[in-house]
């Protein structure tokens, strides 16, 4: 197996990733506090989330549903009975002195995820996905630290991969795919900057051919996929350097500094934590019935990879375009709606990829915020297909649609952009242009084909770009040969 994995200076990288997915429930996992991101200090708290004496967790139905959904999408086994355990440790952001998590009986286990890396298909096993509560947030001021428990108790699904990732690109793509899936399922908004998706990478290296794992280092606080790639890349080489310099690799947690593009030690794990896990007596085991499972299965959306394959097969898109269009569920929906309405999926794909995505990226908007809706884009494509406007004019119309939100029909009408396809009218323009440029006509007749472009430009200009280019060519040739 390892021979097929990328080699780094004679070493192989072994990477396992833990993705913490904040489930976007309205209330917290064990209390009715809000989960909104921008609330005032400690405003989203209650005696339960501040860990006041005697308060008890009561499990949020939706959190279970979302966990099951994600588990099924990752092909996991969903346990009929799973258990919440207490993970005991002291830290100021942990209000109860323990985190409610899952230990030996997680809700989802043994799945896998498939994705494309540099044109090749890659499958990574999912060890488990378990539910837990998020901790609060600490802000450090040197002399002291301040604690905000607004985040404490937000539901997290921790998705743990098998150590089957072997390159920085695979690591980043794995994380992207997880994000894409949880966004498809609408269980997480996938916002890395706000921390609603957090990727921790466990990286180790070993000599190619070696079967024993090297000492692993955990990389935390990586807030973009690009940084996942860079941090892992840096870490692989740092470890190889260390080995080559006969230094020992320490089991530790390191943070990535994007400004300096390097990782640095946060804490060493020499004193292995003893979390004293035990089943939380305040919570009954989670029971999942067959009926609930089949209901959720039924409601699962078509997932990105399957959808992309369908786009390739049914709509003859390139693999690259199909993946681009299926990364976000909204975009794929938009694409399908557009293609269906104008009966030209290929054109829809081109328009979306070249025009719409560029505008969206420039304006930092999501597809749902686009002023050009799927129906209007489909209408525009239909106008081109019908020959009402040229492809070139259509780009002008699109720009106008993007700025004003108007329909293509309105824009074409008010700006008088309908393509001129009346041969008589075009003949007249051609005749005028030829008459005005006798020298060039003479050149053409002397065998200089190059002047053709000059004539087409002048004719299009005279028609304000509206002349049907096909007809222009046809009539021009006829006239020149007269």
């Amino acid at each position: 197996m390892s021979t097929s994995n990328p080699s780094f200076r004679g070493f192989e990288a072994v990477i396992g990733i833990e993705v913490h997915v904040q489930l976007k429930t309205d209330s917290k996992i064990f209390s009715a506090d809000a989960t909104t991101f921008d609330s005032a200090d400690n405003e989203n708290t209650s005696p339960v989330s501040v860990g006041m004496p005697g308060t008890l967790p009561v499990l949020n139905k939706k959190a279970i549903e979302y966990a099951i959904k994600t588990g099924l999408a990752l092909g996991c086994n969903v346990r009929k009975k799973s258990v919440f355990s207490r993970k005991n440790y002291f830290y100021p952001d942990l209000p109860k002195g323990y985190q409610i998590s899952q230990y030996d009986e997680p809700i989802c286990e043994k799945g896998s995820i498939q994705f494309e890396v540099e044109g090749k298909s890659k499958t990574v096993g999912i060890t488990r996905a378990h539910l837990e509560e998020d901790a609060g947030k600490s802000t450090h001021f040197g002399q002291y630290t301040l604690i905000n428990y607004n985040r404490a108790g937000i539901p997290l699904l921790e998705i743990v991969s098998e150590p089957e990732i072997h390159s920085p690109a695979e690591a980043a793509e794995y994380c992207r795919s997880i994000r894409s899936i949880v966004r498809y399922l609408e269980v997480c908004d996938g916002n890395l900057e706000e921390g609603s998706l957090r990727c921790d990478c466990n990286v180790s290296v070993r000599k190619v051919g070696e079967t024993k794992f090297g000492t692993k280092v955990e990389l935390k606080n990586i807030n973009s996929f690009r940084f996942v790639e860079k941090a892992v890349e840096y870490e692989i080489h740092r470890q190889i350097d260390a080995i080559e310099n006969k230094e020992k690799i320490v089991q530790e947690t390191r943070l990535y500094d994007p400004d300096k593009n390097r990782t640095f030690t946060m804490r060493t794990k020499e004193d292995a934590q003893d979390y004293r896990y035990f089943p939380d007596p305040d919570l009954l085991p989670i029971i999942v019935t067959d009926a609930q499972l089949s209901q959720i299965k039924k409601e699962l959306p078509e997932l990105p990879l399957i959808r992309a394959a369908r786009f390739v097969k049914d709509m003859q898109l390139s693999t690259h375009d199909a993946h681009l269009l299926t990364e976000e569920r909204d975009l794929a929906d938009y694409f399908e709606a557009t293609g269906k309405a104008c009966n030209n999926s290929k054109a829809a794909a081109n328009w979306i990829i070249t025009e719409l995505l560029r505008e969206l990226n420039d304006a930092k908007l999501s597809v749902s915020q686009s002023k050009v809706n799927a129906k209007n884009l489909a209408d525009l494509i239909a106008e081109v297909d019908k020959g009402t406007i040229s492809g070139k004019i259509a780009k002008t119309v699109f720009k106008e649609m993007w700025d004003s939100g108007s329909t293509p029909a309105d824009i074409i009408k008010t700006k008088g952009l309908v393509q001129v396809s009346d041969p008589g009218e075009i003949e007249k323009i051609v005749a005028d242009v030829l008459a005005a440029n006798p020298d060039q006509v003479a050149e053409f007749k002397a065998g200089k084909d190059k002047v053709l472009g000059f004539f087409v430009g002048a004719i299009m200009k005279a028609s304000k770009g509206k002349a049907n280019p096909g007809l222009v060519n046809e009539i021009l040739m006829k006239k020149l040969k007269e």
Partner: protein
Amino acid sequence: MSDSKFNKDVIQKIANLARLQLTPEQANEFSEQLSKIILHFDEISSINTEGVEPLITPSEIEYTLREDSVKQNFHAEEMVANAPDKQGNLFKVPPVV
């Protein structure tokens, strides 16, 4: 109590885990007392419990879940009102590094 699982070094290690400062005298005392309790418990180890599912919740209670609805019954001021030290509506602790 030298052969005990609960010698005073173990007690100190456990006390660190539980974030409790103990004086050497206390550690000694606890070591003696708790060793007896553990010794007493060791009688149980002979009971065959193979395949027995541990009992946590002792009575039959119907599994119920909470609907995902927000109830914001408290304000930040009430949540920090009991804090030994605070700044604004945030809890204040020693620097965490």
